[in-house]
C-alpha cells in the first residue's frame, strides 16, 4: 500500500509499505478515504516529539471504510463507512471507565504520561497513522463509529480531532453567560474553540494570531473580534485594555508547542528543541486572564520541560485546565450542533491534495503558504 513516511525533520515522502494486519482480535483494518494534516502533525514533522522514528506514518485525523475485522469485533462489519477518533483506547481501564479516553492506560507501553494516538510517534504508542491507504485500528468495537448517512465526509474527518478538540477546549474554559473569552491561535482548533465559545454563552470572543487570512477567518467563521500580535507591541497589555484592565474571564491556548511571538522561546523551544515547545501562548494566557480566571490548554506540548510562568498562575489564583480531547464523548452533542446548522466544520478547509503530494502539503501548511488553514489528504482510489 502507499503511505506517507517520516524521513527526518522537515522531510517526508510517500512509499510502498506492507499492508497492516490484524494483530489483536478486536482490531480492524480501515481503508482510508479521507485524512487531514493536523497542526500537531507539524511538531512531528519538525522533529520535536521524542521517539519519532524514520519510517513512521503520521495521521490521526481520518475516516474510511472497514476493510477487515478481527475475530472478536461485533460493532463493525466490512464495508461500513466509519470515522475514527484520534485516541487509541481500550474502553475498560481505570481512566476509560471514567470517560477519560485520551488517558487510556492499556494502549501505550512507551509512556504513562500520554495515551495512545494514531501516527504520533512511539511516545504515543507506536501506531502507524492514517495518512496512508490502509491503517490498523485497535479496539474497533470502542473507538470508531459508523458515519451517519446525512453527514458529509469532510465534516466527519474534522470531527475526528480538530472540531472535537476545539469544542472540548471551550468546555475546559468553564465559560459562563457573558464571559469574555480570548482564544490564542486562529488555526483550525482555535477557530473551532472560538466558535464553540458562543455556544456556551460567551459575551465576547477575541482571537489573537498574526496570519492575516486566519484572522479574517476568525471574523467570518467564528464571529470573533481579532488582534494581530504582529501589530501589537505587547499583546498582554492590549488584552488588558480590551477588558477594562481586568483581564479576560477565560483564555484558551490553541497554539501549543510552536508558538511565535517571543524569539528566545521560539529558538530554544521550537528550533533547538531545548524545551517541550515554545510556551509563549501559554504565558500570554496566564498573564492576560483575570485573577481567578481559567486558562484552557489544548495546544499540544512535548514531554520535556518548558519555561512556563507558573508563579504568575499561582499568584493570580488561576484554574489551569487541560487534556487531550476524549473525542468520542463529544460526538453526540456535536452531531446535534451540525444538524442544527450551528456548526459547519468544513467551512475552514482550504486545500485538498492527493496523498502522493503530501510532502508539498506539509511544507505548505508548515510555512502557511497560499492561505493554508486546513488541508485534507485523499489517498489514491479513495
Amino acid at each position, binding site marked *: 500500500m502507499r503511505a506517507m513516511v517520516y524521513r527526518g525533520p522537515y522531510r517526508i515522502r510517500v512509499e510502498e509499505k506492507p499492508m497492516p494486519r490484524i494483530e489483536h482480535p478486536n482490531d480492524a483494518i480501515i481503508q482510508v478515504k479521507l485524512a487531514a494534516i493536523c497542526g500537531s502533525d507539524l511538531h512531528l514533522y519538525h522533529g520535536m516529539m521524542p521517539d519519532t522514528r524514520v519510517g513512521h506514518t503520521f495521521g490521526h485525523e481520518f475516516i474510511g471504510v472497514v476493510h477487515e475485522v478481527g475475530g472478536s469485533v461485533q460493532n463493525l462489519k466490512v464495508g461500513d463507512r466509519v470515522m475514527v477518533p484520534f485516541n487509541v483506547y481500550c474502553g475498560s481501564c481505570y481512566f476509560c471507565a471514567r470517560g477519560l479516553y485520551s488517558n487510556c492506560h492499556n494502549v501505550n507501553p512507551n509512556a504513562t504520561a500520554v495515551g495512545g494516538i494514531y501516527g504520533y510517534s512511539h511516545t504515543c504508542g507506536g501506531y502507524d497513522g492514517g495518512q496512508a491507504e490502509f491503517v490498523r485500528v485497535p479496539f474497533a468495537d470502542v473507538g470508531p463509529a459508523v458515519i451517519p448517512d446525512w453527514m458529509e465526509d469532510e465534516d466527519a474527518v474534522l470531527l475526528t480531532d480538530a472540531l472535537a478538540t476545539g469544542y472540548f477546549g471551550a468546555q475546559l474554559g468553564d465559560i459562563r453567560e457573558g464571559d469574555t473569552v480570548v482564544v490564542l491561535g486562529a488555526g483550525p482548533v482555535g477557530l473551532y474553540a472560538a466558535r464553540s465559545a458562543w455556544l*456556551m454563552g460567551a459575551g465576547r470572543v477575541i482571537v489573537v494570531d498574526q496570519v492575516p487570512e486566519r484572522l479574517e477567518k476568525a471574523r467570518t467563521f467564528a464571529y470573533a473580534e481579532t488582534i494581530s500580535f504582529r501589530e501589537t507591541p505587547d499583546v498582554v497589555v492590549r488584552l488588558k485594555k480590551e477588558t477594562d484592565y481586568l483581564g479576560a474571564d477565560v483564555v484558551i491556548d490553541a497554539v501549543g508547542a510552536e508558538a511565535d511571538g517571543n524569539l528566545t522561546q521560539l529558538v530554544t523551544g521550537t528550533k533547538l528543541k531545548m524545551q517541550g515547545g515554545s510556551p509563549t501562548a501559554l504565558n500570554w494566557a496566564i498573564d492576560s486572564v483575570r485573577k481567578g480566571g481559567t486558562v484552557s490548554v489544548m495546544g499540544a506540548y512535548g514531554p520535556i520541560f518548558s519555561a512556563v510562568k507558573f508563579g504568575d498562575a499561582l499568584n493570580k489564583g488561576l484554574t489551569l485546565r487541560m487534556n487531550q480531547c476524549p473525542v468520542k464523548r463529544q460526538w453526540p452533542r456535536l452531531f446535534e450542533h451540525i444538524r442544527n446548522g450551528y456548526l459547519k466544520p468544513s467551512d475552514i478547509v482550504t486545500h485538498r491534495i492527493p496523498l502522493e503530494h503530501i510532502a508539498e502539503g506539509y511544507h505548505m501548511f508548515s510555512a502557511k503558504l497560499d492561505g493554508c488553514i486546513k488541508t485534507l489528504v485523499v489517498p489514491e482510489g479513495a
Partner: protein
Amino acid sequence: MSHTPYVADKPQPRETSDQLRARIPGWGADLDPADRPAVPRERYDPGASGARWAFPDRQEDAAGRERSIEHAIVTPVFGTSCPTKGVSGVVRRYAYRRFSEGRAAHWLLLMAADRVDVVESTLGSVMSRHPNNPAVESGLRSELTGHPVASRRGRSDWRHQVLDPAVVAGPWAAGALGAALGTRAVLRRLRGR
C-alpha cells in the same frame, strides 16, 4: 469616578444575550453545563464505551517490546510500527530501560536517538533502491505554487523560518566538516610517517 478593575461590578457586556442569540447561530445552546459532554470531567460509567471486557485480550509478541519503567507490564495492546534497530535502537532501549519519564535523560536520549536514526537511515538509503531526495521530501515545490512572498506578507514568522534551513542543514554541514577535518588529519599523519 468608578473604574472597573477597582470596583466590585463586572464590566457590562457590549451586547446583550438576546442580541448575541440573534446574531450568532447556536449562541447559548450549551449554556447549561449539563448539556456539555465534557462536564463533569470524570463520569464513572464502565458500560459507556462499548467494551465487553474487564481486561482486554493481550496482543501477541509483547516479549522484547520496549516499555516505560513506569508501566508494570507491556500494555495489552501496542503499536508495532518501526521496531527498534541499529545504534538508535540501542539508545532508545537504554532510555526506556534506565530512566523513568520523570527524568530529562529519558527524553533527551530519545531525542538523540531520533537524530542517530536519521543518520542511519540516510546512510542506508544510499545503498537502497529508493535513496533520499531532500528536494522532493522537503516539499519545497509548494514554494513555486504557494505564493511565497504574498503569503508571508504581514507576518513576523517568515524571519524565523529563515532559521529552518540552518536547523535542518546545520548538523549535516557540521558533520561533513568534522568528517573532512578528521580525514585530513588522518591523511596528514599517514603522509608524515
